[in-house]
């Protein structure tokens, strides 16, 4: 029950809820990093994944990009970027984006490829143009899988943004890294709790988005 005591002490202390190092500030920073990185990664990964998936070409190139992206250690990359570029948003955002693109890209491609070809052909037969086929037939059917790719990207970003604290950044990792240096275990556990809570909140958010956006006809058969 030791851990639970630490959690309660940290979260119960009113001083932790205000000011520069307060929980709301740190949560805000963490959400900021996550949204920015996810936004950039989705802006790159979604269109490319949708198009390659729609045309069915470039699958091997995507697999190669994903393998390379996964092999790069995000923590090391963050330290390296910090060393090369100094303090700034770029050293944090670059590794986070590199981390998030492969799951978005590959899952989107796979999602588009796994759409049943029969309705796609039927749509063409009804006279739909390619953009219509893509957005009105393939995308709604592929949506659950695409969202699951975005979900794993988001969760990876939340978890890796924690490590950004090591190279002097804000966010919830601050508590863990500072706590470890100050041998303040209460702070460390408090930070870990908040990070885990945020990851679970991300999971819940995506679950809700999936419920709201996936058409009822697809939901029964789709993967969640």
């Amino acid at each position, binding site marked *: 029950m030791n851990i639970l005591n630490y959690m309660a002490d940290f979260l119960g202390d009113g001083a932790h809820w205000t000011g520069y190092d307060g929980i709301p500030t740190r949560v805000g920073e963490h959400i900021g990093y996550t949204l920015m990185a996810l936004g950039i990664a989705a802006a790159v990964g979604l269109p490319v994944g949708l198009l390659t998936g729609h045309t069915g070409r470039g699958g091997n190139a995507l697999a190669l990009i994903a393998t390379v992206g996964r092999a790069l250690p995000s*923590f090391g990359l963050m330290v*390296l970027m910090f060393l090369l570029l100094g303090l700034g948003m770029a050293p944090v955002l670059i590794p986070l984006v590199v981390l998030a693109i492969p799951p978005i890209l*590959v899952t989107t491609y796979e999602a588009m490829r796994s759409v049943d070809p029969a309705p796609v052909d039927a749509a063409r037969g009804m006279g739909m143009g390619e953009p219509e086929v893509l957005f009105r037939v393939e995308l709604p059917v592929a949506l659950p899988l695409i969202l699951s790719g975005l979900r*794993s990207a988001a969760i990876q970003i939340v978890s890796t943004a924690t490590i950004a604290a090591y190279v002097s950044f804000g966010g919830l990792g601050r508590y*863990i890294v500072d706590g*470890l240096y100050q041998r303040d*275990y209460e702070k460390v556990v408090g930070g870990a709790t908040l990070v885990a809570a945020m990851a679970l909140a991300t999971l819940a958010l995506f679950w809700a988005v999936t419920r709201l956006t996936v058409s009822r006809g697809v939901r029964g058969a789709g993967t969640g």
Partner: protein
Amino acid sequence: MSGLFDMPSYLEYSYFGLVGLHLREALIPVLAGLLVALPLAQLCVRVRWLYPPVLWVTTILYAIPSLAFFVVLIDYTGLSETTVMIPLAVYSLVVLVPAIVDGVRAVPQETLAAATAMGFGPVRRYLQVQLPIAAPAIIAGLRVACVSSISLVSVGMLIGNQGALGNMLDAGLKYDQPRLVWLSVGGTAVLATAVDAVLIGLRLLLTPWMPRGARTPAVKEATG
């Protein structure tokens, strides 16, 4: 400090010593994860209603950031290698269970019926028919588990220098030696790529009946 691979003495290992340590810290957890995942997946295949709750639990475990996971374990296992290896084993387990379940479930019913008709008992059928046919899916899972495990070991640096190659990041940053950071990032990436290549080779060896260029099934992505 003349040679490229010379290490400062406070790292306590030579470069290749760190590479060995890194491999051990990354791969033992994957092996442990596989050993638990195989029976657990088989249970999920046999007892159908068990799979959705298992999937839920694994998704939630997977969302817990590595640093938070390490930190909470410090209270039980201290600043040690074990603290780094337990979360990595859990992440591997989480990637492998769905990969194995989907792989084993995808074995055609006719194939199973044929095996039964030939007099195979359940154990022999599992070992000689289901597992080999599921091998590409299992190895796809192992690839993701190994690569993300190798990348995550570095984060262990933050808890009492337990990050093998990741320890060089701290040394490089503190004493302003970019060479060490480059060596860490490059070494980790090469290690991940090499292990990935070995696993691809293993798949080709284990599944001689598959066409060479065949794509492996997509697997859930890994957390950071």
